[in-house]
């Protein structure tokens, strides 16, 4: 039992964190009122006139809205699927190798790309998929005309999804490795005594044991359906791929901070945040109901 006199010290310990939270997390939330105002930099946020839902109405009339919404969902959904299946298959493959030195080496190397910034990865992709880059050299060796991948609207989403999976699959596999090591080894021993082959053990023991974890991760990732990855798209896109590569976040950046349509950009951003909050709440509730998952 903690003495009551501790409480005031607890408050003191919380002060620095709460100040940070108030000024840099909560105070910016107040700024969403710009979505309901005709923002005028001269007047500032407080004295700009209210215009109700005008910004939202305008947003739904814009052709851009449909495009960026579709692009966002397409990219984010493909990433969700890829970032679930590739790490899962990879973890299962590595789990079949019994040489500890080998598995440890592979793990160390595949985790690395996660720690590189999107500027670095974007820069590397630019070189690799450049017109005179190695991928095009390979293609032309096979008799295919070189492609300007980064200016090709058809290729761009695949490039985004592919490079994201390249960067994150190793890191995303960590959780599967943890789940795989917690499978009871007695099951494998019993199966081996009964004459189950390595393949049968994989199908009948390993995969069923790891499915709950995969289902949980799939549920939790639902909240990200509007997060297509701003940093990545921002470093890799250009006007010639806007039709398939422009996402909500990059559009908001250009509308708000380049074209100074503060009200409109805030409205779009706010809608995205609200939908995201609802989705994430639903996915966490589902995860809690069915898997007893709790964040704290």
């Amino acid at each position, binding site marked *: 039992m903690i*003495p009551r006199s*501790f*409480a005031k*010290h*607890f408050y003191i*310990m919380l002060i620095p*964190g*709460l100040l940070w*939270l108030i000024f*840099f997390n909560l*105070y*910016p*939330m*107040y*700024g969403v009122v710009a979505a309901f105002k005709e923002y005028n930099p001269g007047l500032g946020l407080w004295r700009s006139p209210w215009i109700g839902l005008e910004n939202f109405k305008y947003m739904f009339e814009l052709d851009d809205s449909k495009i960026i919404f579709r692009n966002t969902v397409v990219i984010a959904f493909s990433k969700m699927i890829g970032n679930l299946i590739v790490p899962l298959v*990879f973890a299962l*493959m*590595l789990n*079949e*190798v019994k040489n500890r030195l*080998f598995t440890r*080496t*592979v793990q160390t190397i*595949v985790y690395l790309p996660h*720690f*590189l*910034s*999107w*500027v*670095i990865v974007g820069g*590397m992709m630019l*070189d690799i998929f*450049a017109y*005179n880059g*190695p991928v*095009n050299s390979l293609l032309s060796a096979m008799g295919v005309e*070189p492609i300007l991948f980064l*200016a090709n609207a058809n290729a761009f989403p695949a490039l985004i999804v592919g490079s994201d999976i390249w960067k994150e699959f190793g890191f995303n596999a960590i*959780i599967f490795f*943890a789940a795989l090591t917690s499978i009871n080894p007695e099951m*494998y021993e019993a199966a*081996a005594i009964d004459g189950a*082959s*390595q393949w049968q053990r994989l199908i009948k023991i390993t995969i069923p044991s790891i499915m709950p974890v995969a289902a949980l991760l799939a549920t939790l990732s639902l909240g990200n359906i509007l997060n297509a990855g*701003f940093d990545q798209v*921002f470093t890799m896109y*250009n006007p*010639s791929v806007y039709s398939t590569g422009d996402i909500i*976040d990059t559009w908001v*950046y250009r509308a708000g*901070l380049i074209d100074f349509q*503060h009200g409109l950009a*805030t409205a779009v*951003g*706010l809608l995205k*945040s*609200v939908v*995201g909050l609802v989705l994430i709440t639903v996915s966490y509730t589902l995860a809690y109901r069915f898997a007893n998952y709790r*964040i*704290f």
Partner: protein
Amino acid sequence: MIAERSAASRLLNGLNFVLLIIIMLLCLAPVWYTLSISLSDKAAAAGGQVFLWPKGFTMGSYMKIMEDAQFFRSAWISVQRVVLGAAISFFVILLMSYPLSKTSRDFKPRNVFMWLLIFAMLFNGGLVPWYLTMQSLGLINNIWGLVLGGGLPVFNVILVMNYLRNMPKEMEESALIDGAGPWRILFSICLPLSVPVLATILVFTIVYHWNEFFQALVLMNKSDMYPLQSYIKQVAVVIDPTKMDAEQVKRTAELSNQTLNAAKIFISMLPLLVIYPFLQKYFVKGITLGSVKG
């Protein structure tokens, strides 16, 4: 305990092994390729002759960076940002997670604060309100905007808090009996016992501040205040659509700075490659700690 392996099983295992080696090499290839380009002759790189080995080996690109004052200025800003950002978040998180690790019986408003934190983690006002806030706080062209602008790292607070909650209660109780106060318990018991999780969040924070590039592009009006990643984004990772016409690409390739840019990219990831062995010791723990029992 492994049953006799059939020929088919041996074949599958061999195939698996080879595939894993290919996957591993694919993870390294882009890094290696960037290094090769940076050490190559300009014309060879532009002609697309470089694959996995530098062509016309030269240190010229690295020599050129030595003369680039802005590169060093940006690197210094990055270092300052990392040190300030890591030190501040470390202490704030340590102080905050101890009271929050108490049950609501021991510290009544605990759950209120927890929900406030969760809300702040899941909802944000968006880019424009954030920018207007930074403006009104006077954090334009100011390194503190980069240090604090990301907001309280709530996820890391939760990580440390969960770790402290899973600590055996008896430790704290015996310290209480010996007459230790809250600060004594925090610094003499919680701090030394949670070194693994604190190292994890320290690593996460350092990587975050080193890699984050977007905030400075927005907050700094002058590019001489950019940290390294923002500087590289601005000068080296540029996709100019006017150069995207196939014929023009060929003509401008000769003039491009591809090798110099590759050298900049490589140097900027060097610090991460150097601390990586240390880093990877801790983050695996951190990730698995994140999936927590209540």
